[in-house]
């Protein structure tokens, strides 16, 4: 379908293509969360995001906070944003606005201490958001292609069939998307422990391979340092009961999502790829934090495989759920978008990969995924050190 892979989206001032046209209302620090929540009650059309951070951390984490939050503001699915801060925090609206300025999109700021409290802040944010929503409605749609798409690859609440059905099918999709000029991000460094060999073989250059080795070995050392004797349990008892025997086997099932094209870049958490194609991002395995890193990088869609079923979604970014078995698809039909289970009855992973590609195109054209319909939009992001 290479010639047919076109959709109508919104071209942002920085050239990137949004498949949604959201107005983001973001609390830059946890202290502003109540204001953002009240605005979302008054104005459900906005994408309201709050979190538990924005202050009280050491240098590296504050850098990570600014990068991740500014990345979310710059995500092409966001057409405009109102940043709501308290006034004495580190990740202030002005800091984030400046960090996100390259995107060229309209960004407004409201500071609770400056406007005289939360009630006045809510009124001001509401007025700004109403104006921005109106402006966004007037933006014309433009034609995008596969080369405009960046897709995050994720698995969570996995089962023994995830690595057999849904993940290889997503791998076929990743191959097709990259072949069409698009970009796919493989994350979850923890899940790469035990599968370094095949990932090194996929690496496009020595430099990519060396960087990948550093990231995976660091994660393995961290697992031993923090988890001690439990590090070996990265493969959980439930995995073993399900039929998985070794860490390598579990890891290979996870990285099957990446497909077989060369890894062109290895990114730090929340960094934006500078090249199209398959890239690896250093992320935790934890679902929501992984998706935050991918969304901050500019992913417009997440492909999420699951064997036990999860309703999780993400703000402003559609999360497409793919079940590894048909029993789950039938049991949680309100949460799952596509079933890879028929591979267990003889369907090929490539066939299901084509179905995912067709669904991806429909979602890029505006079709809502189950997580969007259900209003599932959870936000959290990765942190390194302790709180101070």
């Amino acid at each position, binding site marked *: 379908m290479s010639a047919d892979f076109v959709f109508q989206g919104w071209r942002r001032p920085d050239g990137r293509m949004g498949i949604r046209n959201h107005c983001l209302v973001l609390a830059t620090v946890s202290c502003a969360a109540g204001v953002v929540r009240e605005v979302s009650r008054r104005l459900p059309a906005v994408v309201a995001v709050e979190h538990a951070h924005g202050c009280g951390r050491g240098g590296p984490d504050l850098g990570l906070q600014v990068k991740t939050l500014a990345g979310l503001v710059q995500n092409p699915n966001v057409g405009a944003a109102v940043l709501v801060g308290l006034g004495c925090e580190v990740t202030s609206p002005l800091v984030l606005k400046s960090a996100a300025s390259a995107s060229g999109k309209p960004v407004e700021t409201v500071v609770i201490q400056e406007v005289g409290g939360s009630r006045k802040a809510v009124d001001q944010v509401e007025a700004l958001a109403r104006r921005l929503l109106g402006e966004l409605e007037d933006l014309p749609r433009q034609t995008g292609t596969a080369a405009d798409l960046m897709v995050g690859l994720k698995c969570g609440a996995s*089962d*023994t*069939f995830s*690595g*057999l*059905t849904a993940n*290889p099918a997503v791998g076929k999709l990743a191959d097709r998307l990259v072949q069409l000029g698009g970009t796919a991000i493989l994350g979850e460094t923890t899940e790469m422990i*035990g*599968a370094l*060999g*095949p990932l090194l073989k996929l690496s496009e250059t020595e430099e990519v391979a060396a960087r990948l080795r550093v990231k995976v070995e660091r994660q393995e050392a961290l697992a031993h340092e923090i988890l001690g004797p439990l590090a070996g349990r990265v493969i959980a008892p439930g995995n*073993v009961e*399900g*039929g998985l*025997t*070794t*860490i*390598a*086997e579990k890891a*290979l*099932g996870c990285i*099957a999502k990446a497909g077989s094209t060369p890894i062109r870049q290895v990114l730090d958490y929340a960094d934006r790829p500078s090249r199209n194609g398959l890239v690896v991002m250093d992320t935790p395995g934890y679902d929501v934090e992984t998706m935050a890193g991918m969304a901050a990088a500019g992913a417009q869609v997440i492909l999420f495989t699951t064997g036990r079923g999860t309703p999780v979604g993400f703000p402003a970014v559609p999360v497409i759920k793919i079940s590894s078995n048909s029993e789950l698809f039938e049991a949680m039909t309100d949460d799952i978008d596509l079933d890879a289970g028929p*591979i*267990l*009855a*003889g369907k*090929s992973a490539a066939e299901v990969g084509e179905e995912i590609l067709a669904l991806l195109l429909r979602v890029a054209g505006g079709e809502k995924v189950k997580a969007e319909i259900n209003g599932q939009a959870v936000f959290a992001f990765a942190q390194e050190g302790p709180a101070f």
Partner: protein
Amino acid sequence: MKASDGAVLAIRVHPHDNVAVLAADVQAGGAVRLADGTELQAVEAITRGSKVALIPIPCGKAVIRYGEEIGKATKDISAGEHVHTHNLRRGE
């Protein structure tokens, strides 16, 4: 998933794999079939989601899944046998 003749489907991800994963429970002596039509007999009862050896795997040799080594056999494994923690360990 079972074929109409009762054979249990097993999924081999990569052509080099010497194990496949069962899509349904199989009884001892039951037939196991791959997508390409290859058939073998389960030498013991094996549950859905578990691995079955497609060829004999001698003790110390690599067990291959996804075209990669997932560990080594800790005893001789015959074709049709269940492959799990009792006869497979992570190779160092």
